[in-house]
């Protein structure tokens, strides 16, 4: 049998056209084939398999999707033309469309927050003047820019002050950033809060509700630990996003850089199962069960750069985000819709423009005061 015949036989084999005898030949031959040595590290191979997994996860997702990209572009162009025209014609008079008579009064969120000091004093960060807000025990809190406060200077004797907690709370339609006493940066999304001691003890421990993005100043001997309703996240040197809203079905931590360990809340941290996240992975906790999967980190942190980013999201999930940013209550009428959305919208877009984009998917809205009704 020459090589040409052998190739023909193999072709017949994988086309399923072999006789039983030929099949036996090919399969026995296959068993006897020599193996090539493995020249790659387990890490490289793990990366390959993770890539395949990510591809497969996308592959098996349900197909019905609507892309809002072109519509956003059109809407933005129309809006720009409109604003430019209105500016020249009416100077500072606000543009009005039919929708704007109702939705137009609803503006996007901005830099708003309150700070609660250890003694219970409440300070509106929104209204505070730039510069020093508070000075206690050698530590100052400064409003360094619109939307950011920073802790400067060490508070006197650490362990005692580790019992003194401050809390920053954002309302719906608010966001705020803070530089903590150790230099760690945190950005809080709307309807969220973070509680931390004014001086960290042996563990830098903070508590978060809602959504926050962390850039932790790494110190191997000084762990940084974030507690949320479902998860405890311990930093190994890191940037990560935590989404732990009470009205979301799951708590999600997405790692952008470095490494973190994630535990289920209430677990004994010395014994509990820790999941080590690598960049690009998300730990999702639902009903006390945590699963890890590969995600697009850009989707998870788009909010901190001023965008809504939807990736196969259903209308309910989108409305939860809008309700927090535009300070709205949401009601639904009719059977729910299976449509999912993909795309990005700047968070400073007026509500009416956002709704226009969603209405293209045959979803209708009406607004009564602070309440928005979604009609499928």
């Amino acid at each position, binding site marked *: *049998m*020459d*090589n040409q015949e*052998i*190739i023909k*036989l*193999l*072709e017949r*084999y*994988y086309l399923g056209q072999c006789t*039983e*005898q030929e*099949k*036996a*030949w*090919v*399969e*026995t*031959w*296959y*068993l*006897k*084939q020599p*193996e*090539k*040595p*493995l020249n*790659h590290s*387990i890490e*490289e*191979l793990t990366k*390959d*398999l993770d*890539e*395949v*997994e990510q*591809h*497969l*996860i996308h*592959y*098996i*997702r349900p197909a019905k999707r609507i892309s809002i990209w072109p519509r956003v572009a059109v809407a933005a162009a129309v809006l720009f033309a409109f604003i430019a025209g209105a500016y020249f014609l009416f100077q500072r008079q606000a543009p009005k469309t039919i929708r704007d008579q109702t939705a137009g009064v609803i503006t996007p969120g901005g830099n708003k927050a309150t700070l609660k000091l250890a003694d219970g004093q409440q300070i509106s960060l929104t209204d505070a003047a730039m510069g020093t807000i508070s000075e206690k025990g050698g530590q100052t809190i400064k409003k360094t820019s619109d939307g950011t406060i920073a802790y400067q200077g060490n508070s006197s004797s650490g362990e005692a002050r580790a019992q003194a907690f401050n809390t920053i709370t954002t309302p719906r339609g608010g966001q705020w950033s803070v530089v903590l006493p150790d230099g760690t940066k945190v950005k809080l999304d709307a309807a969220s809060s973070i509680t931390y001691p004014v001086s960290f003890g042996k563990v830098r421990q903070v508590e978060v509700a809602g959504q926050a993005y962390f850039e932790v100043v790494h110190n191997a001997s000084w762990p940084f630990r974030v507690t949320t309703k479902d998860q405890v996240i311990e930093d190994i040197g890191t940037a990560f996003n935590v989404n732990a809203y009470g009205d979301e079905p799951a708590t999600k931590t997405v790692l952008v850089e470095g490494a973190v360990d994630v535990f289920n809340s209430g677990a004994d941290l010395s014994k509990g*199962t820790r*999941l080590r996240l690598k960049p690009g992975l998300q730990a999702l906790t639902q009903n006390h*069960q*945590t*699963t890890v999967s590969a995600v697009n980190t850009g989707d998870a942190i788009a909010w901190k750069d001023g965008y809504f980013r939807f990736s196969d999201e259903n209308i309910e999930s989108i409305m939860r985000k809008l309700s927090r940013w535009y300070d709205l209550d949401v009601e639904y009428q009719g059977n729910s819709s299976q449509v999912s959305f993909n795309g990005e919208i700047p968070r400073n877009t007026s509500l009416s423009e956002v709704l226009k984009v969603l209405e293209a998917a045959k979803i209708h809205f009406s607004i009564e005061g602070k309440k928005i009704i979604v009609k499928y």
Partner: protein
Amino acid sequence: MKAYSTLSDVELTDLLMSGDQGAFTEIYTRYKWVLFLHALKRLGDREQAKDIVQELFTTLWDRRTELDLRSHLSGYLYAAIRNRVIKIFTHQRVVTGYIASLGTAIHEDDCITDHKVRQSSLAALIEKEINELPEKMREVFVLSRKHHLSNKEIALKLSIKESTVKRQVSNALKILRTKLGLFVWLMLLLRIF
């Protein structure tokens, strides 16, 4: 951490056929290493090995309702990876060393004619790859094998008629003994009888 990891292959297969994405992901997690390492050692090319693993699983998903996997998920996956490797051999007509050896294989009479013995031999060959991995990564697969063997597999194996297989088995063992090492070789015996 999800309950999928405790399901047997048979249960996972049923869920897969009903379109359960979690079951699909678990099957991937369970078999990715053995399939990938096997393809890699046969082809010696990381990209090709990665591609055929990906292709194998997208096909598994697309055809999940048509395939009769119920009794033998591993058998299906192993045959699928073998056939894809063979396809690549065929297309790479340059690998003549490999292909030429088929010419000689055919003239020898140590050909394994019983397909169940070939199937078990292939399984043993592929599953031994797991030994290349650090212990932690082996765990998922090894545990799933324990579940699997304790269920339907055993019943399947017992249905092979001993007398007709004996000579086949000795052929298979002759071929594989040098490759497998004692432990896996014993596993193969267990698989067949």
